[in-house]
């Protein structure tokens, strides 16, 4: 599997349903060895980690009433809150950073979508599915109405899915995927479109996309 295939696989895994690592395992396993590869990969990942999770939960359920465990738990639970808050921030930060480069109106809308999604669930208990579909729909409509400020149409072609650090760290080879990702401060999701077959097109696209964004303060 070459770098470009891996990076595209990674991007695809970001938007399809389920746990990222499982999707990556499915795609890589299938790409390399077909269904046997897929099943072997899934089994190799799931059997040890799922068993460990169940056993740890079972062990915990047995000692849950011990005073020492209770005390430890009173420390762990607030820490879990801090952790999930950090996860939300880590996920939201690159999204808003990208919106910020596209101008204040788009930034305002995207913050609005985020806040409204949270409020709809917290205050009116609206179904998460409805909220997610509405978030996607509203963003499409508003982005059609308000074009990104200072971004050339060529840069619009770049996809929305955020790339993960692991993919960014891939070494650049012959102006390969990493060369395109590099100058864009990790903001680009999918690398290597069908027409990006040569290193020349890659470098050109990278330069095009980088130019206008670089000029934005």
């Amino acid at each position, binding site marked *: 599997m070459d770098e470009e295939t891996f990076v*595209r696989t990674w991007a*695809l*895994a970001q*938007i*399809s*349903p*389920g*746990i*990222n*690592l*499982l999707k990556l*395992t*499915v*795609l890589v396993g299938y790409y390399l060895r077909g269904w046997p590869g897929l099943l072997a990969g*899934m089994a190799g990942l*799931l059997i040890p980690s799922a068993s460990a*999770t*169940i056993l740890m*939960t079972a062990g915990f*359920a047995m000692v849950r009433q011990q005073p*020492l465990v209770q*005390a*430890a*738990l*009173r*420390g*762990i*639970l*607030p*820490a*879990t*809150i*801090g*952790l*999930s*808050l950090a*996860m*939300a*921030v*880590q*996920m939201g930060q690159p*999204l808003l950073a990208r919106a910020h480069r596209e101008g204040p109106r788009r930034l305002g809308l*995207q913050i609005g*979508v*985020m806040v409204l*999604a949270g*409020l709809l*669930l917290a205050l009116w*208990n609206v179904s998460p599915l409805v*909220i*997610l579909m509405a*978030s*996607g729909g*509203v*963003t*499409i409509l508003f982005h*059609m109405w308000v074009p990104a400020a200072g971004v050339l149409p060529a840069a619009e072609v770049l996809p*929305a*899915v*955020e790339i993960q650090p692991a993919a960014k760290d891939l070494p650049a080879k012959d102006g390969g995927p990493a060369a395109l990702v590099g100058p864009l401060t990790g903001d680009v999701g999918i690398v290597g479109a069908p027409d990006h077959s040569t290193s020349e097109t890659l470098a050109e696209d990278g330069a095009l996309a980088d130019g206008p964004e670089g000029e934005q303060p």
Partner: protein
Amino acid sequence: MIDWLLYFWLFLKASLFSTGGLGNLPFLHSDLLAHGWAGEADFITAIAVGQVSPGPTGLWSISLGYLTYGWLGAGLATAALSLPPLLALVVGAFYYRLEHNPAVQDFTRGLSLGVVGLSLAVTASLVGSAMKDGWSIVIALITFGLALSKKVPVIVLLGLAALAGILLYQ
């Protein structure tokens, strides 16, 4: 009494409409609470176990399955999160043709924004049962800061939090 088919469907649905991590939390949180099949404590405990145990954080729902419905629940939860990733093969067939379509990109961005908003809302709703005094706010804030800095592994953070709990409350 838990209807195991519905239980499985709720887990499957949560996995189908989320893309990993704690993305399935809002779904399971509203559905299981609505049926009275789980309490707030089950969720926080399962998330904590999911963070500590090896493998992806997303496996936290297996722990939730065990806490709410025993071994059967854990098995159903595991099955429910093993199936949706297979759809990546199907999504891939369409996605590589659509990946440069602006509407598809905007929809994906909107989805991610919604996911962040939902996780914040669920986290807020768990605060009540996880944080009872001033110290717990301190612990949550310190963990939040250290987790953002990415300098300390999650398992170490939770270990320190457990130690703090023992020292403070034992």
